[in-house]
């Protein structure tokens, strides 16, 4: 069985309302050095599946290629 960790984030240029809100909140808390915050999703998968299959899962369901990018890290080879 292999283990994968997947990071899903908005594509560059797409407004991320939760990220923008967190960014404003941090600045309001006095962290003036904060320039940008982006919030995405973290997904961990354990499966009898190779990397190509996990990419397919991302394309089909876990991410929406119209608005999101994804990055897969293989934590443990199957």
């Amino acid at each position, binding site marked *: 069985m292999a283990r994968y960790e997947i990071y899903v984030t908005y594509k560059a240029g797409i*407004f991320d309302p939760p990220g923008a*809100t967190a960014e404003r909140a941090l600045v309001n808390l006095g962290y003036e050095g904060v320039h940008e915050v982006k919030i995405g999703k973290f997904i961990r998968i354990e499966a009898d599946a190779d990397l190509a299959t996990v990419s397919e899962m991302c394309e089909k*369901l876990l991410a929406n290629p119209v*608005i999101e990018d994804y990055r897969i890290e293989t934590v443990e080879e199957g």
Partner: protein
Amino acid sequence: MRFGVVIFPGSNCEQDVIRATKYLGYDSEYIWHGDTDLSGFDAIVLPGGFSYGDYIRTGAVARFSPVMSEVVRFAEKGGPVLGICNGFQILTEAHLLPGALLRNRGLKFICKSTSLRVESDACQWLDAPVGSVLSIPINHNEGNYYCDTETLARLDANGQVVLRYCEPDGSRASDGSAPNGSLDDIAGICNERGNVFGLMPHPERVVEPITGGTDGQAFFTSVVAKLAEIAG
């Protein structure tokens, strides 16, 4: 004339659509999301709600419901398909309409009446004068329409932007009239052929005068008239 209204687990506006269509004198029936037979239906409506709890993304799981491959086939044959709110989100996830619906700018769930300007006559689901203003409520957390610049140019060129949020007098505010931050104030779009239409506002909620207006009637009467015209 028979409308089919799909129920996904978590849909919650299907009864409103059934009631609205029956109020207008049309036959309408529920379709369970596990069904795969759309024979006998002239038009399909994907209603609002929170299909599959909006998990992963709104509409992301519902688009794989068994009924959806039939809905795609129905649309490809030219059958009229309407997606309201969550139904619109499902149509974009199913790639029957371009773009995506993001979280509202400001992170707030918005439930209120909105002014909408009719921008095009290319859609089978709305036969109303271009430039006229309709008053229809919205009720959503993810209605912030987004598409890339090329897609937006194509939508504009083909008259696929059917409705834009506007001010009550029909003008658009310089900083945008969309309460949810929608790109270019877009509230509803159709496909190139004009038979598939998705919108965030809820026309089924303003069909009977007792609910505060009748501007929603045009959507259902338009598609019935269009189908009669096609049938000759």
